[in-house]
């Protein structure tokens, strides 16, 4: 958040620099099952963001002292690759990615039926290949599809999106320039079936009215992303049926529904 509201990012007609309206999402593309080795995987684009997610597990949990005898632990690692941003990012976790990994892990701990897999670890890897603001939301969206692709039972899929404030207006799904020069950023993730908020962060400056409007916009957008997640899994499932002739293997579909 540069907090610099002098940079004009929204035209007088309410059109943003990439041509979107204030309540419009970037083009979103979701594909499930894009990697061979991982137990589940997904590829997501939110505009110019390119994000891969892979899931391994439930598998034996190392180191052993981290095992929970009552349930699986979720270990999510969010990472930006070195050339995903303009200035090369040194490989390895920085403080930002440690925090994001933690809050995404916590979010999935709630939706995955972890009690089904005691003593195991479910490992979720999110790699941001190309970044353009909103990577944690794109990553969470991708990881959720990858978990379903891995056949891991969940309460629901988890869509995620950021809302923000730019030029004193509440806008949906900030891209890079808007994020750099905007006034507030509010990433959320939700459980569509119950309407509960699973992840929420905010920084910048919003009045109470702006916050309420932002939350409303975000919740609406999450529902649209949810549909795209379900579509991707449905395509994946139908492809699998055709390709591999396994009409009985319903794990991804199951996962998607509950």
């Amino acid at each position, binding site marked *: *958040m540069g*907090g610099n509201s002098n940079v004009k990012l929204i035209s007088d007609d309410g059109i943003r620099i990439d041509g979107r309206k204030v309540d419009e999402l970037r083009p979103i593309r979701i594909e499930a099952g894009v990697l061979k080795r991982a137990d589940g995987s997904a590829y997501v684009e939110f505009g110019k963001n390119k994000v891969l997610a892979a899931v391994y597990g439930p598998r034996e949990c190392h180191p052993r002292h*981290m095992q929970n005898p009552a349930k699986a632990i979720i270990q999510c690692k969010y990472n930006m690759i070195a050339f995903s941003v303009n200035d090369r990012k040194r490989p390895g976790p920085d*403080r*930002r990615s*440690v*925090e994001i*990994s*933690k*809050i995404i892990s*916590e*979010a999935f*701990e*709630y939706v995955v039926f972890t009690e089904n897999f005691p003593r195991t670890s479910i490992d979720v890897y999110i790699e941001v290949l190309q970044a353009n603001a909103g990577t944690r939301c794109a990553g969470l969206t991708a990881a959720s599809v990858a978990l379903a692709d891995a056949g891991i039972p969940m309460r629901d899929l988890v869509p995620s999106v950021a809302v923000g404030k730019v030029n004193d207006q509440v806008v949906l799904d900030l891209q890079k320039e808007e994020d750099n020069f905007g006034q*507030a950023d*509010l990433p959320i993730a939700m*459980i569509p079936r*119950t*309407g*509960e*908020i*699973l*992840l*929420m*962060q*905010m*920084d*910048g*400056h*919003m*009045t*109470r009215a702006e*916050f*309420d409007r932002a*939350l409303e916009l975000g*919740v609406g957008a999450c529902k649209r992303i949810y549909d795209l997640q379900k579509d991707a899994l449905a395509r994946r499932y139908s492809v699998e049926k055709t390709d591999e002739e396994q009409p009985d293997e319903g794990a991804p579909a199951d996962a998607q529904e509950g």
Partner: protein
Amino acid sequence: MARAVMSEIKKDHIHKLLAKGRRVDNRAWDEFRPITIQPGYIETAEGSARVKVGNTDVLVGVKMTIGEPFADTPNKGVLSTNAELIPMASPNFESGPPDENSIELARVVDRGIRESQMVDLEALCIEPEKEVWIMFTDMYVLDYDGNLFDAAFLGAIAALNNTMVPAKANDRGDDYPLPIRHMPISVTAVQIENSILVDPTLDEEKVAEARLTVTTDENGDLRAMQKGLAGAFTLDQIYKCVETSQRLGNDLRKLIG
């Protein structure tokens, strides 16, 4: 900081009291524990404060040195915020580099200071592109009994409020107080079986399903939020937390000089 296991008996006790609308220490759901703030506790720091919220004890110090600005903010001072969950404070804290818990704590406090524009960073520029003040805020948890986010944030703003820029010792003119523009306050609540409890103790945190920290300024505007733990909040619970933060923030703000 693996979330420590707690006895089932203690857990039940908290749950049963909550069902009757009560807390273990008899506080109201929106009541903080007793708070003491000792500003200027450390002489070797440019600013400092020791803050106790109940038994939670946090020492915050601010050190300032001269350095180069970041390339993209050539006329602004630099802020660096660090939290140390030292093993002195809890049997569950371990020695070593900051783990995810101390990183989250530091980053949430940092955003609460930075994004609220609490400190006028432009006033910390000495010569654009060349020299600015680098401000290190280090937060040490000495005794841990829950609600680190609010105790650390209170400590940080009290220490900043108390900081003198050491210009003289650096041959840059006379010392002056750190230019403070806003006074954001964070209020943290947890959800336990659909109840919202402000300023959770460690025992309450262990039972809690979800945590929400809301930081507001003197106008009641939102400056930062952070949801934590594995559970979820309904929209109504979020609105309740926001309103509580606005209301209690005004009381807490009076405790800072």
